[in-house]
């Protein structure tokens, strides 16, 4: 396990034009690095810019300025190469209702240009890993929330990506499934994968994350190891987070 940054986001700046609300700066010069074999937690309240940042990492959105490189590949210039290295999971993402879990994961393997036997092999491995056997050939529309989340994980992992980007991956899940997701993230880290994980839950930060980036209203308030953040709050991440946000609000109300 080396300590080289696998993912580098430089001066990300993103502006949306809104007919009613005018110009919205979703990200204002945000930089961070995710190191191989570590979990980077993107922490912030709702509307802080977490999802926008992760969507840029996943090449869904283009930054207004700034750049992202994944293992040396520039996301804007080589989107296809970068996408092959990244697995993206959003808690809100849907599944095709009339497609079975196996068909869905196979389809994404095909989009990645993988050969059929390799896809079949990956599907079997992921099905074993997430204990998907009983519902592998059922239409996604008939699965429970927990089963659906497993299908999403399998979909994200079909091409065995180096960097995993998870946007609120445990939202709307019961504690049992949420724990399974967190366990998976931990095991992926232990296998040397790089993980970027956004959340607004302090508990998840405490249990899972190695490095933390705190964002608020599109600005970065903190960037460093979890221990450092904890010290800032006198031993508790939550206290540190409140202090950072309050200070920022006081500076620019």
């Amino acid at each position, binding site marked *: 396990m080396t300590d080289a940054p696998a993912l580098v986001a430089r001066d990300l700046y993103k502006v*949306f*034009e809104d007919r009613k609300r005018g*110009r*919205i700066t979703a990200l204002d010069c945000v930089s961070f690095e995710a190191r191989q074999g570590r979990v980077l937690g993107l922490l912030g309240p709702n509307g802080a810019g977490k999802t926008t940042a992760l969507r840029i990492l996943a090449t869904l959105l*283009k930054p207004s300025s700034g750049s992202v490189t994944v293992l040396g590949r520039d996301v804007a210039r080589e989107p296809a190469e970068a996408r092959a290295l*990244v697995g*993206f999971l959003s808690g809100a993402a*849907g599944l095709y209702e009339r497609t079975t879990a196996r068909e869905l994961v196979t389809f994404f393997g095909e989009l*990645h240009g993988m050969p059929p036997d390799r896809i079949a092999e990956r599907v079997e491995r992921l099905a074993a890993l997430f204990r998907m056997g009983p519902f592998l050939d059922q239409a996604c529309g008939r699965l429970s929330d927990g089963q659906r989340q497993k299908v999403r994980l399998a979909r994200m992992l079909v091409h065995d990506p180096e960097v995993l980007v998870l946007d609120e991956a445990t939202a709307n899940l019961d504690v049992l499934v949420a724990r399974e997701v967190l366990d998976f993230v931990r095991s992926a880290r232990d296998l040397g994968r790089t993980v970027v994980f956004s959340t607004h839950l302090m508990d998840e930060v405490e249990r899972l994350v190695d490095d933390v980036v705190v964002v608020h209203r599109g600005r970065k308030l903190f960037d460093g190891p979890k221990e450092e953040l904890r010290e800032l709050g006198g031993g508790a991440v939550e206290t540190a987070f409140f202090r950072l946000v309050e200070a920022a609000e006081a500076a620019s109300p």
Partner: protein
Amino acid sequence: MRRRVVLSVAKRELRDILRDRRTLFATFVLPLVLYPALLLGFTSLAKSAREDLGRRELKVAITRDGAPFRRPAASDGDGVAETRATTRPAGDDAASDPFLAALLAHPRLLFEDRGGAAEAAESAARGDVDLALDVPSDVGRRLARGERVELAPTFRSHDPPSKAALEAVREIVRDVRDRFAPLTLREADASSGRQRASALFGGVMSFVVTIMALLGAFTPALDLVAGEKERGTLEALLTSPASRRELVIGKYLAVTACAVGASLANLGSLAFTFQGLAGVVASSGASLAGSVGFDAAGFAVVTAALVILSALFSAVAVAVSAYARTYKEGMAYLSPLYMVVLPLAMAGLLPSAKLETLAIVPVANVALLMKKLMAGEHAPGAAALAILSLAALAYAALEATVKLFEREDVLFREGKGLFARRKLEPGEPPPAPTPGLAAFTLVLCVTAVFFSGVVKDRVLGMFVQFGLFVAVPLGLSLAARFPVRETFATRAARPAGYLGALVCAAGGVLVAIVASRVLGEDAAKETSEELKKTVLPLFERSLWIGFLCVAALPAAAEELLFRGFVYAGMRSALRPFGAALATALLFALMHMDPVRFGPTFVLGCVLGALRAVAGSVWPPMLMHFAVNAFAAWSTVVAPAEDPGLTLPGGVMAAMVGGGVALIALGLFLAGARPRRALGAAGGDR
């Protein structure tokens, strides 16, 4: 059941529905406007078609005892051939035959000599004349004696003018019967079963099938993109290494397959149903059983046309779907689309609509082609033009859809609409139209021409048509925030630019004079006849109105549209002269006249080159005005004494050489710039 609870549920739902402006528009406002507008448009088109038919002279070939019917003077021996020309035969026979007299006196019947009875009947069957009728020489005598007489006119029941001619004859027969003896008609319908079936069912069938192609594309397309957005499955798709182009074309293929399936299934089912109906319905006394459908070649052409029409609809539907946030929002966009497609799909229901004139009007061309092929009539040229223009359009629409799919502000619609205004980042080039948008604009304009036919007054109609030529691209430019000045190249040219334009015009006129001689008398005559028919009434109002409508309006509107907007679109992908060439091609196609294609293409090339070298739309506008004004002046105001005058080959070669040299000089003048400003302002190089 508690009534209050039911009512409050209903109230809440209604409030919710009424707050959705799109639903309101689609359910209430649109129908209020749509059907009256459709009815108005359709009836006025049908009325003008009826009036056209009412004005038309009806060609009738009459024979006497099976022999050609000639003027008594012609029977002397000489000048027999002369009577092939359309004449109104008169003779002593007429005096003794009340039927023949009434026939010859009819104001709308025009008599043509087509030889003996058999040849005449053949002419009527082919459609060269509207009706053939043999009138035995003893009819007058027998009528006077009160004997029963039967006549057998040949006509074509599927052809409106032919039916009108028959109706005129029937009227005379009724009149004669009232005054004399029983005179009856044994009508011989020369229309084939297919032709009659097409006249009966073709309009409805082509209408339903084209509309079903639209629906067949729309429903799956909405589910494929807007539905994916709604269910949140699009994100995962977009994070895969598949490019946006691969994704959109894959989806597009699936939608097209559905649309093709839907239109072919409807075609088959309708043909089958009408086939059954045809067995019951008899037309002109003959059953139409087995007459509904196509021959093998016709079926192949119709299938090809439907595939391409489906491809076009699919591209539009996928674009709408990419833009819409939800399935429901997408459905709301279907109604305005209907408003455009519906009247076009009705083309087959209009008896006067001809495939030849509407070959590049999308949707209408497919409907008319289908109807024509149902009648067993093949028109390879018009069919090819229709299919090729549709294919070009479908391709442009697909390209535009791919572009739309690549725009994150459209795909994610983070509060921002398609036409939202965005401040340009410093150093960012201003947006410009693309070739696809240019092609799309032209189609809108062609379609606008189709609709502006509703306006009765000719001059007003021209103002509407040419106004739309400017309004459509201008509106699109404003919506998309293209800089108007640059897009339409409305910056003034240097004086040399205008001088160059006039020199080019002089050269163009020289070449055009020779071209009209070389193209042959027939083509030239046909064109000028056609021109006279449309242009003459304008000049009859006043010289100024004539020149305004024939020279000034087209020059201004067509140049702003073609050398302004379309050129700018082409220029975004091509070098200046490539853009000029592409623009000229579209310019020639838009004139929808195979005879004039060559001349308009050459004219378009010179106009485009002028636009390129002068960097302004005004010099080509001046040249266009000068050329049109000369054409109008020479054909209408001061027509040549002898249009058939042939020029010696040497003179023609010299004229062409001089013309080309003048054009080259004009372009050089327009492009030349002061030494100090070299390479700076001016031309679009």
